[in-house]
């Protein structure tokens, strides 16, 4: 590492050496620029996904590095979207990595004015307990005309249409088994 090396890194010196009178091109290039590469080349894996917004069903490539997302962009293989995305699809990275995402289960007690944090397991137990209590209290074996109905109208469900088919299937299956009939979805809205 001599003075010459140091000088060699000085673009003016490079200019003199190369006879570059304008310094508009690569003589003025920094080491960083010379070795620049897209962050996707550092990805551990590329996961095939589908855009969660509208129903066009655009393919997405999710680039993952060390369990974190590097980039999400259109999947050129998709015969539907051919790698293209709309602004929402293009913003998916922010949707899934944004700091708007809540990490804790929150609980608001009756009449409460603030959220409280709850451990997940406890919250699940509490919900199960409430389902049971409400179901038992509002169960109808028969309706007003004496016809068998086997149900509760005390509990209802409304699901978004960004849920997976598998999720919808289990929701319908469990709630039907519980006698909950008011199972509804964005599809009706």
């Amino acid at each position, binding site marked *: 590492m001599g003075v010459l090396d140091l000088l060699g890194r000085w673009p003016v010196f490079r200019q003199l050496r190369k006879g570059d009178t304008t310094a508009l091109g690569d003589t003025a290039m920094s080491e960083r620029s010379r070795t620049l590469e897209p962050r996707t080349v550092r990805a551990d894996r590329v996961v095939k996904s589908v855009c969660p917004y509208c129903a066009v069903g655009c393919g997405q490539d999710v680039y993952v590095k060390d369990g974190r997302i590097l980039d999400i962009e259109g999947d050129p293989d998709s015969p539907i979207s051919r790698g293209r995305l709309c602004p929402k699809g293009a913003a998916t990275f922010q949707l899934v990595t944004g700091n708007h995402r809540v*990490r804790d289960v929150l*609980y608001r007690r009756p009449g409460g004015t603030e959220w409280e944090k709850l451990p997940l397991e406890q919250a699940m137990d509490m*919900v199960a307990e409430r*389902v049971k209590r409400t179901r038992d209290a509002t169960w109808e074996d028969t309706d007003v005309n004496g016809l068998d109905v086997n149900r509760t109208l005390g509990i209802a469900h409304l699901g978004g*249409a960004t849920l997976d088919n598998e999720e*919808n299937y289990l929701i319908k299956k469990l709630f039907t088994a519980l006698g909950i009939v008011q199972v509804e979805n964005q599809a009706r809205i």
Partner: protein
Amino acid sequence: MPGLGISFGRGGATTFQQDLRNADCIVIQGSNMAECHPVGFQWVMEAKERGATLIHVDPRFTRTSAMADLHVPIRAGSDIAFLGGLIHYVLEHERYFKDYVLHYTNAANIIREGFQDTEDLDGFFSGYQSEEGKYDIATWQYEGVGGTVPAGGHKELYAEPGAGKGGDESGSARFEANKDSTLQHPRCVFQLLKRHFRRYTPAIVAKVCGVPEAQFLKVAEALCANSGRERTSAFCYAVGWTQHTVGVQYIRTASILQLLLGNIGRPGGGIMALRGHASIQGSTDVPTLYNLLPGYMPMPHAKQGLDLDQYLEDHEASTGWWSNLPKYAVSLLKAWFGDAATKENHFLFGHLPRLTGNHSHMQTVADMADGRVKGYFVMGENPAVGSSHGSLQRKGLRELDWLVVRDFTLIETAEFWRRAPEIQRGDVKTEDIRTEVFFFPAAAHTEKEGTFTNTQRLLQWRDKAVEPPGDARSELHFIYHLGRRLKALYAGSKARKDQPLQDVTWDYPTRGRAAEPSAEAVLQEINGYTVADRKLVSGFSDLKDDGSTASGCWIYSGCYANGVNQTARRKPGREQTWVAPEWGWAWPANRRMLYNRASADPEGRPWSERKKYVWWDAEKRRWTGEDVPDFIADRPPDYRPGKDARGVDALGGTDPFIMQVDGKAWLFAPSGMMDGPLPTHYEPPESPVENALYGQQCNPARLEWRRRDVPLHRAWADPRYPFVFTTYRVTEHHTAGGMSRWLSWLSELQPEQFCEVSPELAAERGLTNGGWATVRTARGDLECRVLVTERLRPLKLNGTWVHQIGLPYHWGVTGRIRASGANDLLPLVADPNVEIQESKAFTGDIVAGRHATGERSATSAVAPALPAGTPEARRDSLRVSEHAHDTQQEKLEQER
């Protein structure tokens, strides 16, 4: 999608997006495709570049209109008149595709003598029961066919008693007996159609829709010129058609038109239903809908002595594909109740809860507001912003004992108890709200695996990329572990009511520290398997009605054929044909275009070389072509069923619509529709004008919740609410905003709630561009920014000028960018077939300046009094016995 279901047999888009490129003319109506489905719109642009004519019919000049060759501004809520006008034009000028209509539709069928049309009854069909606001459909049936002709689409499967095979004993011949192939019989469908739309002339279109005759004729001509043997036209629609009190009939009208033009089941043709959410099609296929079981089987209704046999008897069709219902129903019960379900115990059919009417979310919210619902699960949904009459939604939430919200972040529905307009105004105090609220953070689509079903019925598997943060979990995790807990809680119970829960199969393998259930295992159950060896079946044709097979959703059967996750197939599009059959998996049986048998003529030859798609290979004696034939693969075109042929055997070689009992597409719907066998123009419940066609103003079968907290304006010409409003989305946001208003990259693009008004209205009301305005209805008010633009123009209707105001509905009171929600302005009214809200046409007022004093909210809606001497405006004509609705209302008031 009963509009499509009733007409063609399946409730899904008849075609796929890539096929739009083959169209010679594309009509986009009830959709703003370029804005709401920009990436799908590439196929429209490609068609345009290939020379197709692009027509956009819409109240506003949108980004779709900007690309169109022809943009036709129309009054929101008048599309049936417009489409009816096109039908009239096609019939009047004999532009229909005669061979297609004759062979593939029920045009030749003769309808019972007692049938009376809206032309006869001034807006009603025969059979209207004024007390219930419903139709008795007996007179709508085919002549000479006993009982009801069941529709292939879904809802109707239960709606009419006796619609199943119980109603009729004879085979397929019954449909052939009473036909007039000359189409001349005065009661044949074709003639009825002609008569029904007789008055839908260009002049009427101009009067009702505000579309000048010349423009209308341009559309009609373009459409006719681009339909036939050599050419095809496609329609694209979205919620601009469905969110009306006559929404299903909008789609029916388009279906009739497309059938007359011979555009269904052919490349470049069809009706493309554009869904707004990643898996909205999936949410109806594997329904989280109250009235359906997976695969469009009906939920059982409470009925004396209802058991599995009776259920099957009621719903099984004697002919057509639905004759397979027992196989699918039994397989479902086996999938759900496993070994406990045996032939002896009727496969535990009795475990299913029963319906006793409307249990849709519309009814639920009303019940909730009345304190009848105690617990509510909201998963990935934001009713406080996205559903109509937001203040009533929040009132409902306040009356709950407990609420579970699962989402990425604290959306309005989770924060209703402290961040709602009525709380800000001080009408309601947070401390007084007793609802217990659980918020569970949800995993994103990158943090879980599973399938979405897109708008073209295509299932696409997503792999999991990363772990969800913190306590965020998938819905699959939540529901599985909730079920596990409940099973444990009820484990010792001997009560009959707890039996179903004890019997339901709930053993999915889990993975990882979070014990995430395997979505693949669930998908395998949906696909179906043989009970004995748990071998995955290869499709629904493997399913049996003896309990030897199980399948969670028969139409998805085949998605895991050969033990391979077909939905995860990712063969690049460029390495396949343009149909790309090896990308994902489409229901049914990986067919990309439905009813594609109709792309060939009755003899099985392509209608033309240019529009070749699926045809009969006489040598191999099989149907073949670009796609999986949507037909019995080896049934020759000349096959004619025997007189007593039953089930699928009853489908002839020229019956492309295999789900239908008669194998034909329905121009006229003898059953399945709650509001008429033919579409009829009715005004929205709130309209600027009187119905120009009939004495009956509104859909007589519409669903309306007559409550004090759901005030409606006058039926027409309400002087307090003179303007027509329509709500919609913009490209930069997603529905109720839960997935866009928190993202800065999207929020900066459309940062504030705005309305769009014409320069004329701006001048009239003193609105300035970029300034503030307050929009009012009797349900609430909303402040927003004003965009003054020529993209909206007043329309001349029957001599009067009508102003339309556009209102995107993405904003709410939480998020990075905030406003009160536009859906707070909507009334609670709905289509009778599908209970979808009316949000595309209602009336209201607009004034310059910021928010009013806030005197109105759900709890105390006070509309200004009507000026004295305002003439009466009735939604229902005097033909309806007067007291029917009023007593109902009184009863409701008393209950309150």
